[in-house]
């Protein structure tokens, strides 16, 4: 095993891991903090990818810019989904079985809907940073991976600052721990949860754009990410954003090693091994409370 192959595998893993953090951060908020098991999150990400794809092919706008512009729409979508979820399941205490089935149905409807409209062809976007590679000694930094990684880290850091330094952000952190105490402070927990869920879906817009920059996509790609995002979320300690970032980088490196030394077709299995191992050995995750 040559040293530069090894170093390149680590770099590729870190870049990939950064992107995984962007994919997972929404789940860390919805599942980790709000206890809403949104297994449809990857479907929202794919939706974000397709929006980036449509606007990019028609108007040639940069995919990341498109995602930023689409943030409010995704926020509203998320808020609406949460309101429906609260009204139909959480209020009646039925979120365990029927709530899960509801999100599974959403995942499925989104996927089949996209297949009906776009077919199963792979779609991709055009941008100046897709293609060139920066070289630093023997290390390769493909911009196609570097740009999503940087955007993703900015996203996670920004969200962490928002959560720890604003009133609403702190209320979101609090709603995960004690709803009643929040109510005593005259804050409506449902409103806070709606805002938080809106934010979590909004991140899917950005993650979707990053996804389609990294790889061409088709509607069912999202399913591969379900195992990954939950593995990262659990390993990161359920709702800890720094933990999410670390766990994502870790998974990225392990996957990159698997792809380099055993072949890329094994990579999807890695996340599952990760998840099972975490659940069996340390369910509280790395930075768990």
């Amino acid at each position: 095993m040559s040293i530069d192959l090894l170093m390149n595998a680590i770099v590729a893993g870190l870049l990939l891991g950064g992107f995984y953090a962007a994919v997972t951060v929404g789940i860390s908020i919805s599942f980790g903090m709000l206890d809403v098991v949104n297994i449809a999150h990857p479907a929202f990400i794919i939706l974000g990818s397709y929006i980036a794809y449509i606007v990019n092919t028609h108007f040639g706008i940069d995919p990341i810019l498109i995602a930023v512009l689409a943030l409010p729409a995704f926020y509203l979508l998320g808020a609406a989904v949460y309101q429906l979820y609260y009204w139909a399941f959480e209020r009646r205490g039925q979120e365990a079985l029927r709530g899960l089935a509801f999100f599974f149905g959403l995942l499925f409807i989104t996927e089949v809907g996209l297949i009906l409209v776009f077919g199963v062809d792979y779609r991709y976007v055009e941008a100046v940073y897709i293609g060139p590679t920066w070289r630093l000694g023997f290390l390769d930094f493909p911009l196609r991976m570097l740009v999503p990684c940087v955007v993703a880290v900015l996203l996670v850091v920004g969200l962490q600052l928002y959560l720890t330094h604003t009133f609403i952000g702190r209320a979101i952190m609090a709603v995960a721990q004690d709803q009643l105490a929040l109510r005593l402070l005259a804050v409506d927990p449902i409103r806070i949860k709606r805002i938080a869920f809106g934010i979590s879906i909004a991140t899917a817009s950005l993650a979707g754009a990053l996804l389609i920059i990294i790889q061409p996509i088709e509607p069912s790609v999202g399913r591969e990410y379900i195992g990954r995002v939950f593995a990262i979320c659990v390993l990161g300690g359920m709702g800890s954003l720094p933990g999410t970032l670390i766990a994502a980088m870790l998974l990225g490196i392990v996957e990159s090693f698997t792809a380099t030394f055993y072949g890329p077709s094994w990579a999807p299995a890695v996340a599952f091994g990760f998840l099972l191992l975490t659940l069996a050995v340390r369910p509280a995750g790395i930075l768990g409370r």
Partner: protein
Amino acid sequence: MRSWTFFLSALGVGLVFFLAALGLGNDYVFFAGYVVLQYIVLATAWNILGGYCGYVNFGTAAFFALGAYSSVALHKLGANVNRYASGFLADILHLILPLSLPSLVIVGGIVSGIVGLGMGYLTLRLRGVFFAIATLAMAVVLQTLMINWDFVGGSRGAYVIRPNSISAGPVTLSYIEYLFLVMLVLAVVALTVARLIERSRLGIGFSTIRDDEMAAEAAGVPTLRLKLIATMISGAFMGMAGAPLPYYLGYIEPSSAFGLPYAVNSIAMPMIGGTTSWVGPLIGAILLGSLQQIATVTISSAVNLLIVGVLLVAFVIIAPAGIVGLVESWRRTRARAAS
């Protein structure tokens, strides 16, 4: 009704259908009927864990495909014994292989049951949500495994050549009729087992888990053991339903065997029918299964999946107790009006 009486009368009803279909003399009835029966087994199996215990399994397709692939593996092994084994081992293999369809069904059930037990042991000690997520991820991993396993065809898939007909004594059935019959018996067995569980101590234990696991645990119900039993029975039936699949399709490849439609259907059918009794999955499977058979022929297969998804979401929001629940509440209001 005693379980034996139930089993025999259900089998009788099934046989009447079978003979009526034979009388029609149209093979399509058997092809479509097989799929509906397969969904009855899958929905009933899902409901044993999902409906009775309240634990959601998103990995139906994984258990199902595992059954199918164990058949493929045994079929391949049976066709080329000498290439993979020698000496005494080869003699034994020659003696047992090729296995008959019912024994393949049993093998598929054992394989999936063991995998269900293992999965359950790793994840069921935690909150139910983790089990659901793990099953979802397991489907992806097993698919990866099959894609990389060349012996059963890898991503290219494998062809399984089925005989044209099968005869026992004076009776000769075409193979699709035989497959239909096997699936029919399996469906009746699954329904009988589900009904038996519902009325036994086991079923009462399951429902305590569904209603309040903490309280059940505190009252001395061995919750982990019960959950493991449920996962194993449920997984085993899913594997059994999958075992004849390669013979039905004649060709199998990972992305169709692990297809999301199996998972969605096996959740949607009990949810739409009603999850608390064995009747619910039966009603759901017959309704949705036939609807899909009609929609696939008349509209398109993608649209029929969309219908299932929309129905699932609509039912869990509007009618959480399913069709059985709707009928019950309607009967209750009528009884109140009459008195």
